């Protein structure tokens, strides 16, 4: 049987429900189950939920719900967690142009792993990456599932400016910079899609509770064509159901 979660205090208005201490799709699935259960339960006084790798953070108003009552309610829900049907998982396709000015570190990642740049792209585009959680900056998805064969260390000195949409590798992780920011990841490509846009609601194209990301290689011409559509608000990202197995 699964061990009961730990309830940890994160101040006077937030509690963390922690299901374990590792990065694994199974543990993360438990977080997602609890997310949907608590959301559906619509508990008065519960304000906001933040799913993470292995825990669910629950913001609450202690003047509207007593902590003891909230804990009791969470335990009740947790007992039902194994029976929850999760909403269907989606694969969000992220068109990406690799190498050149868009991916200045592609050659490094290839050399570092004794591969050709072509092989790196091949490997990077052949996996559905699980969105474990979103955080750190608006829209930054912590993705899981990258092949160790294209792992690469961070830059010794971070770049001052990494353009929004840059696709990078750091250690055994891959990710997309949703906003222009400083950064030390090895940049291998760029997507014209706006991962984060505060004028949309929800503001992020990815859901931390159901999504996978699949990078799809595009040409430079395609990049510019999609970018124009994105600018004019006519671009719709391609989403398909996850094929199990």
């Amino acid at each position, binding site marked *: 049987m699964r061990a009961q979660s730990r309830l*940890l*205090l*994160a*101040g*006077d*208005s*937030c509690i*963390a429900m*922690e299901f374990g*201490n*590792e*990065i694994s799709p199974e543990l993360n699935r438990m977080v997602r189950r609890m997310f949907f259960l608590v959301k559906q339960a619509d508990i008065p006084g519960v*304000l*906001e*939920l*933040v*799913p*993470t*790798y*292995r*825990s669910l*953070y629950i*913001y609450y108003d*202690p*003047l509207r719900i007593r*902590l003891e009552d909230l804990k009791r309610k969470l335990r009740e829900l947790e007992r039902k967690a194994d029976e929850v049907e999760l909403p269907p998982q989606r694969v969000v396709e992220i068109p990406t142009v690799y190498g050149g000015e868009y991916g200045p570190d592609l050659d490094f990642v290839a050399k570092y792993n004794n591969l050709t740049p072509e092989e790196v792209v091949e490997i990077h585009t052949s996996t559905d990456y699980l969105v474990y*959680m*979103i*955080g*750190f*900056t*608006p*829209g*930054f998805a*912590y993705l899981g599932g990258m092949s160790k064969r294209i792992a690469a260390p961070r830059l010794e000195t971070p770049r001052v400016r990494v353009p929004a949409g840059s696709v990078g590798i750091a250690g055994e992780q891959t990710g997309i910079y*949703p*906003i222009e*920011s400083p950064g030390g990841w090895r940049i291998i490509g760029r997507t014209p899609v706006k991962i*984060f846009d*505060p*004028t949309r*609601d*929800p*503001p*992020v194209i990815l859901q*931390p*509770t159901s999504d996978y990301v699949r990078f799809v290689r595009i040409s430079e011409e395609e990049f510019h064509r999609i970018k124009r559509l994105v600018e004019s608000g006519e671009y719709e990202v391609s989403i398909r159901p996850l094929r199990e197995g």
Partner: protein
Amino acid sequence: MKAFEVTKPGFFTTIQDLGRWGYQMYGIPVSGAMDRRSLRIANLLVGNDEGEACLEVTVYGLELKALNDTVIAVTGGDLTPLRNGEPIPMWQPIRVRKGDTISFRGPKSGCRAYIAVSGGIDVPKVLGSRSTYVKGKFGGIEGRPLKPGDIIETKEPTVDILRVLARKLPEDFIPKFKPEVNVRVVLGPQDDYFTENGIKTFLTSEYTITVKSDRMGYRLQGPKIEYIEYNIISDACTRGSIQVLGDGMPVILMSDAQTTGGYAKIATVITPDMDLLGQAKPGDKVRFTQVSIEEAHTVLRKYEEEIKKIKEILQ
């Protein structure tokens, strides 16, 4: 209504309200005023709802020219507010006439002043809030600090603004901001990543706020906090989270706190005491006192009851 033109933007002035809630799962920080009690009272003094957007003025230098007659209130840290070069009282409504200049000479106590304008500052809401998040470049005016030439627009006041001029906050409710801050904390969520010794050091030592401090977080300097491990599998952070870095030094996350992070969090500052930290500046000293979660909730209840009382007194 066009209320003010910004003639000098000052060191760092942004539009803030009580924050952008409901989007932390997308990595969007809550933001909002660093000293929320002062923002709420400023609004109540001029007849606004307590959560309307205000100007958060940092340290010095802001200068505004009134484009219309209005009523303002200045609360928070005492940055020596002036009208046409003459000192004006804080914590009460102030009549401003077209052509008047409002400026700040510099800090006497605290470091952030709040200017509420009758009607409330009118900028488009982004994801439910008017708060400026500068790192994300959204909220407020174009997601940035104020610059010369910006126009501060306000909504139509819902009360007779001349009648609010009689409002006055009793002296007892006016906070005093000191360069030594004692804040109460609830241990966790990762206090088990620290040695007994480390927790003792944290709770008995004095820490100094360093210049590496902004609306996102305050880096502190002081006795090293002993940990068992300082890296965690990244999880959520909140306003008030106290992370400990590899060098054993604590960082208190403030209003623009990142929503997730990978450092172990030894404790969390209780909500009411975050206002005191919001008025603390580099060089100020911080001490931490542990309270139980029950005590923390009692303090929070009293804090909210006090604001309710202020609301009643001012009406």
